[in-house]
């Protein structure tokens, strides 16, 4: 969303991992969907996601995708050792 000059800091300052100025979720053509039956919670997807969009609550939970920022690059699906991530065409 566009901001006016009175509601922005002097230089882009973003908290980690989210970025208020660039919600990259709108770029997505394919959406990663995790199949929990196949997932072994190795968190390799979390390690590889370039947009810090794979969120891990704790080691016992399944990873979750933050679709506001996931830009659909497919790296997580490619790196998953169990083929547990499907890239599904957005409609």
């Amino acid at each position, binding site marked *: *969303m*566009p*901001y*006016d*000059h009175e509601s*922005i*800091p*002097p*230089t*882009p*300052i*973003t*908290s*980690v991992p989210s*970025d208020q*100025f*660039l919600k990259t979720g709108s770029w997505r053509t394919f959406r990663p969907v995790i199949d929990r039956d196949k997932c072994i919670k190795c968190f390799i997807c979390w390690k590889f996601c370039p947009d810090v969009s794979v969120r891990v609550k704790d080691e016992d939970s399944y990873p979750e995708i933050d679709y506001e920022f996931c830009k659909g690059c497919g790296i997580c699906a490619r790196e998953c050792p169990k083929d547990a991530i499907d890239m599904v065409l957005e409609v």
Partner: protein
Amino acid sequence: MRKVITGNHATAYGAKLSRPGVISAYPITPQTTIVEHIADFIADGELSCEFVKVESEHSAMAACISAQNTGARTFTATSAHGLALMHEMLMWAAAGRLPIVMVNVNRAMGPPWSIWADHLDSVAQRDTGWMQVYCEDNQEILDTTIMSFKVGESRDVLMPTMIAEDAFYLSHTVEPVDIPDQEDVDAFLPPYDPPFKLDVDDPKGFGSLVMPNNYMEFRYLMKLALDRARERIVEVDREFEEAFGRSHGGLVDLYRCEDAEYLIVAVGTTSSTVREVVDQLRSEGEKVGLARIRVFRPFPVDEVRAMVRGVKGVAVLDRVYSFGAFGPFYTELIAALYGQDERPVIKDYLVGIGGRDVRSKHIRDIYSNLKAVTRDGLDSETEWIDLNRPGGGA
């Protein structure tokens, strides 16, 4: 304490008195002795500061940017090709809103290889967002270094400053300089208190990508910052005068301009020669004054408009030329005056390029020419002074 020191030594004192947390610089003639004096201060325990040694000026500015982002006050110094190598990082410092202070010893760009005074190096960095202050003497360099931290660090400015001193005329020439007491400088310049900084307990990303729907607003903020800096520079100059008893003229330093019919606009050390010639001409009954453009960015638009009111002719002395156009100070002056109802005749004189001496004889010739073109109309917009002509004629 008064000492007889070079401009470079005065620069080092100005930096030291400002208590920077980090200095990073790479030596280049004629700036080298600034770095040497600072290294001496640190080695002798007179200055407690981190000095980061680097392999280039690009890295020096990158180190300053990183250090300033952690909340440290930083300082650097360079010259000519070193400044050119910093170009990318200069943009980053300004848009990162980091009030770094740098002294640039104005030196000609090669080829032909040269180490002498010329304003192309700093003028070529005009659009980076840095403030630019051109000094006339060694005292001014020391004082401006302290003042520039105060101006730049103002919460409503947050922009870096480049202080320009002419190679050799200032960098290597000794003059009596008053070195203020540390406690007086401490009272004038409080510690740097940035509104944002890198903090491991509250991690943030700085300078990230924004899309076209948000980019312009960040540039608009920089425009507002430099507009406000115009007022801050004048205010801080006044505060400095109250504290230390001397002013350097704010944005434009006017000398004998009341009732002047002609103005000679000069920048840096050429101004001292013009000052002398103005005194001579005044004693001969001529109504002429010197307008020394001290601050090039932000450009003193209102001051320039005010100073030409009632003036018939203006000579601009440019120690730099923008190839394919005119001298840059002339261009800026013309741009500021174009919309005014009454405009004087204005002519651009290229002087002292690459450190050629500008003598009082040249200034007197320029003044005679200015009077003639004001009376008879311009012969040309620009004239190169003291150029070696084919056949040896002037």
